[in-house]
């Protein structure tokens, strides 16, 4: 069989090419100009009865389980926005423009992408969802590296990005973008919330040793926790950077034994946290006495989903979390009920932030009465809301960071079930973790791109 028909002349080819070019000009364009204004709306649904969201989550790689939980939350959010299911947080959210009939009368559909927890892969899948699948908004992710990369793409392409799990100060600091919004808390807030509890539990005369994941999130968390604890009188003995995904951290843990430090702070997340914490406990660091005090380990950012991997090692360890399923406010209860009944287990903090982000974007479009990004951005900027799990919350206009209460948690000593891993020590009020946006610099950039 011949792959090329010899009878096909150059003229026929040229004709076909011209016809293809004409067809592509006639087809609906990716960029649609807003009526009466010299601006563009990417993937404007126009008269279509549906609008498409793009959920960009880690479906492969080390954070695949966390990504799967994010996707479950997004699917639930889409259901609730479209008026299906029990409505979840739409029953508790206030103020609320959504009516449970889609957005601006259009039913929400979604496409998914795989970030692989790699910046380049995440950008490529976001780009694909925008250019090929017609996504009007992108949301998701489980890493600050990914969030910063996708956020910058979102700004270039004029498509709003609602960040998933990202905790680096840079996301809404030096790398903030007009088209990027973060509901999740950040490293600064963890430091401000955690430090007073640390001082109360372990005293003000402590020597801390930091082990830090060597990338944007680790650096900002180390800085924030250092600043917060030093302000209380703690001394930082050493801060050592460890490669991401080191596996065996023993060569970084052995120097801690001779450093004179009496607290080890693990600025690690996910698998790194599971490994370094497990190994630190094996090195006897929970049983040591240094400087006449009990040696302590602190994990500033906890993830219940990943903490399961550390088993008994997390018991008694202090840290912070954005949200926990055991919260008893009406919003959290409504979400846990919907999610639990749908999937048979409680949602993670990653699932919570993604669910809320999808609802907030949808609500902003409904409120603005348009999908035109600058108007949606303005609706989100300075939006104050409640009933979504963390008390009264503000989407600050200056840096697109949400401000809300922060949870200080501790690994539970006697769990009552397989999901009962963390106990809430304190709900730190929003006022205690607020800060001047100028301290982290950065520029949001223009509304219109």
């Amino acid at each position, binding site marked *: 069989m011949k792959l090329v028909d010899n009878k096909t002349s150059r003229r026929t080819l040229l004709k076909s090419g011209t016809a293809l070019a004409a067809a592509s000009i006639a087809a609906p364009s990716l960029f649609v100009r807003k009526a009466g204004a010299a601006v563009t709306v990417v993937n404007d649904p126009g008269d279509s009865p549906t609008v498409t969201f793009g959920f960009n989550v880690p479906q492969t790689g080390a954070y695949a389980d966390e990504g799967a939980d994010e996707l479950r939350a997004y699917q639930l959010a889409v259901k609730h926005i479209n008026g299906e299911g029990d409505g979840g947080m739409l029953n508790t959210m206030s103020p609320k423009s959504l009516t449970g009939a889609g957005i601006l009368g259009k039913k929400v559909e979604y496409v998914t992408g795989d970030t692989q927890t790699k910046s380049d892969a995440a950008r490529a899948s976001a780009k694909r969802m925008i250019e090929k699948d017609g996504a009007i908004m992108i949301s998701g992710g489980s890493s600050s590296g990914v969030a910063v990369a996708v956020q910058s793409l979102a700004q270039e392409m004029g498509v709003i990005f609602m960040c998933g799990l990202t905790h680096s100060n840079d996301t809404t600091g030096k790398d903030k973008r007009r088209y990027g919004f973060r509901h999740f808390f950040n490293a600064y807030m963890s430091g401000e919330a955690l430090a007073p509890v640390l001082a109360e539990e372990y005293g003000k005369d402590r020597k801390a040793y930091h082990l830090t994941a060597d990338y944007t999130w680790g650096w900002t968390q180390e800085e924030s926790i250092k600043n917060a604890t030093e302000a209380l009188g703690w001394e930082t003995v050493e801060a050592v950077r460890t490669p991401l995904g080191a596996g065996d951290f023993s060569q970084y843990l052995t120097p801690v034994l001779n450093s004179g430090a009496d607290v080890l702070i693990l600025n690690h997340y996910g698998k790194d946290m599971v490994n370094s914490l497990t190994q630190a406990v*094996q090195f006897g660091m929970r049983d040591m006495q240094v400087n006449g005090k009990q040696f302590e380990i602190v994990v500033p950012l906890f993830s219940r989903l990943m903490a399961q991997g550390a088993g008994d090692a997390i018991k008694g360890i202090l840290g912070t979390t954005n949200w926990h399923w055991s919260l008893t406010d009406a919003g959290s209860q409504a979400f846990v009920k919907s999610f639990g009944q749908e999937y048979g287990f409680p949602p993670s903090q990653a699932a919570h932030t993604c669910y809320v982000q999808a609802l907030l974007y949808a609500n902003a479009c409904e409120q603005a009465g348009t999908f035109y990004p600058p108007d949606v951005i303005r609706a989100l900027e300075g939006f104050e809301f409640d009933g979504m799990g963390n008390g009264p919350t503000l989407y600050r206009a200056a840096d697109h960071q949400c401000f809300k209460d922060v949870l200080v948690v501790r690994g539970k000593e006697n769990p009552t079930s397989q999901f009962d891993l963390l106990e809430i020590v304190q709900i730190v009020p929003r006022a205690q973790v607020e800060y001047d946006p100028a301290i982290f610099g950065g520029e949001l950039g223009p509304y219109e791109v």
Partner: protein
Amino acid sequence: MDAIFIQLLNGLDKGGAYALIALGLTLVFGTLGVVNFAHGALFMLGAFCAVAMHQLLNISEKVKDESITFFEAFKEQPYLEIWFGDTGTAILDYAVPISILLAIPVMLVIGLVMERGLIRHFYRRSHAEQILVTFGLAIVLQEVIKVLFGANPLPMSAPEIVSGSAPVGSWVGLGSGLVYPWWRLIYLLFSLVVIGGVFAFLRFTTYGMVVRAGMYDRETVGLLGINIERRFTIVFGLAAVVAGLAGVMYTPIVPPDYHLGMEFLVLSFVVVVVGGMGSLPGAVLAGFLLGVLQSFASMNEVTQLFPGIDQIIIYLVAVVVLLVRPRGLLGRKGLMET
């Protein structure tokens, strides 16, 4: 002095793991001439033998947490504990060492099936093709494990009696505060025993002698009427068992996940190259040497002088060895030097 001693111990402990994996890799390369990129996956499969055994022993009666109504939350108690009381608890406590009993036959079968079903068809193909097919196999194996066990690390604990730290400082006349985890010391001892066992097998048994002869001159051994292919198949199985046992015993050190093998793959190849392709003593020597070097390079005093050296030291050594002595530390003369 305390710091140097503890880093040395740490290096030997790391080196034990490197040497065990590199040993199997070298064994396969030396006998079959196959560059097996799925060797790390065998290490990972060994670790998951321990996970499977742990899950099997921990089959539990579930008591519903009545305070939670939105989803199914349980407090679990293993049947072994319910049925056998303290004896059951003790069996659960020793889940990792018990897993060795499962890992040996399972890994042997996996090794034999792998060699018979796939690897043998690539004996006469180029190294590039061998790498492609074994790397592909490694990815398939890890994805299968991910489907079965999820992507998150799974906690495995050492028996209670050795879960703490040993006062190594007081043993050698240094500070009494100097401690090192018992399980890591056991791992070091275990790796030495396994390495010694493999060497004894090759050195002191007739079977091993034939294998060594086959490694040296396959054709002549074949002409003597010995079915060297079959012996090499068994050697592949043996390498799989060694990798698997290394994986089982490693689970209390690093909670295993599906990606565990890949983390060791590149490293173990560097160990083999530095030691000398096909040289078993070379692999062991290089394993321990690189482990110790990596540990010392991570000392704060060193990283302050040379930032980032802890992350590149192993590869730096590999580059120097390849430039100065391409056949590796104990490689056969002429190997990779032409």
